[in-house]
């Protein structure tokens, strides 16, 4: 199976660059965005197995980016990364449809495992959609 492709969104360029390099060293295909607007553009035009999203960003913050991204693509697997994770923030993010939330600094292997979980969940969702489509087509034609 191909390694997951992941989009990392953070307004701190050196953090973004270093996490991207560490994940790339583990075989992930990594793209980056320095703000919510660029992330939403990339999400609209590309397919990602998981999005790692910083909560505190100027202009469009992580929570708003999460809402807009899931509106575009409800099957997105988003991991919220935050410098000040609170249970309340995490619960809110998960209620909105995030896969999970992690506190900065996150252990890179734990983050990698979460990205893989996101990819697996997305693949599963895709298979379910395909199965439903096939079942409906069979029903439609009476097969």
């Amino acid at each position, binding site marked *: 199976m191909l390694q997951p492709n992941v989009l990392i969104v953070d307004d*701190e360029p*050196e*953090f973004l660059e*270093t*996490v991207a*390099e*560490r994940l790339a*060293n583990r075989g992930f295909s990594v793209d980056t965005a320095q703000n919510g607007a660029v992330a939403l553009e990339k999400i609209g035009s590309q397919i990602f197995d998981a999005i790692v999203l910083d909560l*505190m960003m*100027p*202009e469009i*913050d992580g929570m708003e980016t999460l809402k807009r991204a899931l509106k575009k693509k409800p099957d997105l697997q988003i991991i919220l990364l935050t*410098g*000040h994770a609170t249970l309340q923030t995490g619960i809110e993010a998960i209620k909105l449809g995030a896969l999970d939330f992690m506190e*900065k*600094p996150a252990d*890179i292997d734990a983050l990698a495992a979460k990205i893989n979980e996101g990819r697996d969940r997305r693949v599963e969702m895709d298979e379910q959609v395909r199965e439903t489509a096939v079942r409906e087509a069979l029903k439609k034609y009476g097969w």
Partner: protein
Amino acid sequence: MDHNQDQLRRLSLDFLAQVTANATHEIKNELAVMNEQSHLLQEFLEMAAKGRQVDPERLHTLVERIIARVGQADEVVKRLNAFAHSADLKPGALRADGLLPLTLEMFARRASLLGVSVEAEGGDVELPTGVDMFLLEAAMWYCLVNASEAAGKGQVLKAGLEKGPEGLVFWLKGDFAQEPAPPEAAILESLGASFSAGQNEVRLSLSK
């Protein structure tokens, strides 16, 4: 405790909480970057130990970046320390040319999150004796928050401290979409300050 004192105590704690939350987020951010960079450095060293070629220039750059980040985190701590001590300075010990940059540096991250930036203008002004530094800093902070919110994203505000006919004045200039709200009355009353705001300017005047 009367209502005004109670209100002042609540606002002082709110201001202190905002300043410390801001500074600790900045420090945490620097630590998060250093954490990633030092782990990457460790990974390169592990690769080298396994016989893989690692570019020494890449290691050098990483170390330089970590050193720079330590310096930035140290700046935040120094600023927080200067703020902590500003409240108990003797009159005249902290001049306006120290107060304005300190307040703006403390506010920079919040400004960035609100989508604005604030630039200092003007020179050295002596602060009036007997001024309550903590309350003055709080009043300036709330002026900055309210003006930044009123300005909206993408704006560059100008800030200055000057001696006007009415006494020391802290002003902010920008294009405000709506009139910036004043700091709460309890702060203004305790500081002996007045506030005025228009579409382009905010003035906090200390008449005491």
